[in-house]
């Protein structure tokens, strides 16, 4: 199970959250001018990255707030958690092997302890075997 650091509530089990798919998909600026192909892109086509993926989550059974996350879709490690509307952080700009606190959450008063830190090693799932029946 993923351990997700909600920006408002701190680290909580994945079961408290719901997944919102790829982040940073804007509603079309001129929907009346879109052709079918462009509507198809907006409605049905999403990145399916193998590697670092920007995605949305909502803390459904907690603060009910949405936020963005950079997560590795192979190791499932969470690299960064940042605010809705904020640009995707550049992981390459960070120190190697150390994930920075990203987002505006760190500056907000009254923040839950540890809320702005991102989980790395803790955000792994139970190991499973890989044999069929």
């Amino acid at each position, binding site marked *: 199970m993923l351990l997700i650091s909600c920006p408002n509530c701190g680290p909580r089990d994945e079961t408290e959250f719901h997944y919102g798919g790829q982040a940073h998909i804007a509603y079309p600026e001129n929907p009346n001018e879109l052709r079918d192909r462009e509507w198809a892109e907006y409605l049905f086509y999403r990145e399916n990255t193998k590697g670092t993926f920007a995605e949305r989550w909502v803390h459904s059974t907690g603060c009910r707030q949405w936020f963005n996350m950079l997560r590795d*879709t192979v190791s499932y490690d969470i690299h960064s958690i940042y605010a809705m509307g904020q640009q995707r952080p550049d992981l390459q700009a960070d120190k190697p092997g150390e994930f920075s606190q990203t987002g505006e959450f760190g500056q907000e008063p009254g923040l839950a302890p540890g809320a702005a830190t991102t989980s790395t090693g803790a955000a792994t799932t139970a190991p499973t075997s890989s044999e069929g029946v």
Partner: protein
Amino acid sequence: MSADHLPEHPDFLWRNPDPKKSYDAVIVGGGGHGLATAYYLAKNHGMTNIAILEKGWLAGGNMARNTTIIRSNYLWDESAAIYEHALKLWEILPEELEYDFLFSQRGVMNLAHTLGDVRESVRRVGANRLNGVDAEWLDPQQVKELCPILNISDNIRYPVMGATYQPRAGIAKHDHVAWAFARKCDELGVDIIQNCEVTGFIKDGNRVTGVKTTRGTINTEKVGLCAAGHSSVLAEMAGFRLPIQSHPLQALVSELHEPVHPTVVMSNHVHVYVSQAHKGELVMGAGVDSYNGYGQRGSFHVIEEQMAAAVELFPIFARAHVLRTWGGIVDTTLDASPIVGLSPVENMFVNCGWGTGGFKGTPAAGLTFAHTIATGAPHKLNKPFALERFETGALIDEHGAAAVAH
């Protein structure tokens, strides 16, 4: 249903050739769909100078990880047609492939737990019958008669209010299915090349002319992608996108038990599906993990939830143990139907998007995809499953309609 009925361990059933410099067609992915496609290319279309490229070992992806359920009781006409054709092929394949892979038509039951479920189920039984798919509506007592270990009392959160039943549905030994196809492919001259990962494609303009692999460059007239969870990765290499999201899908088995479970039971509402393998393990699965993932593992709460559902439905399972759990990577589409057809790249064809239900479709996927590759145009069964449907809006929305949530 005991170990005595399992076949002897087979001899080596296929060669392990080095890749040739060129082939008439290359199939990427040596799972069930890739093997079936190559088999029908060779058998139905006389294309024997072809290769299957597998990045790992033969049938070691989702073909080794699924819960082996075979059924065709889908709601919509297009789905019923292709899955029922698959079921008819399953019925003749053991003889055709000269290999008894223990296709056991023990029936599949889809439980209804709410009034909404009942209405949807009765509607689906009607739709199935109109499409020539065997389907029955069972009341709770009939459910109990067919599967005595099911709890049909009203002391559970979602009592069983009935079920749809497809008697011709069932399970098969998935590994043996793969080996059966592989042996026939090999006999027909198909090169099955394992440990050969595709790293790129060679194109002349918008036409594919070759495949770059970890075992060298291979020239080819045509490329068929059968890569399930990694379809998006290959499409990106080839320069186009697919409306697919890859998710982990987990399953589990118990230790071996005496035969207690005579059929296959699926519940959409409390969400678990259970059968008992020929050796005696209870085999269970449920829905995908919510997040995108390529890690061939998922989160444990998904396993816990399906076990809770199973124990409520089958009180006798309370003393069973989880022997092992595992995950595969499934390629889901937003209408829960596959994509089988042409791609935006000339001479490249896609078979993907089978999501959580690809095993049952294996023979029909192979048959129709082989036809598409050989003739350059879809077979009538896979024509509705074209990539263009996401543009035209002619979706085949089997979400919830297909008797199980995806």
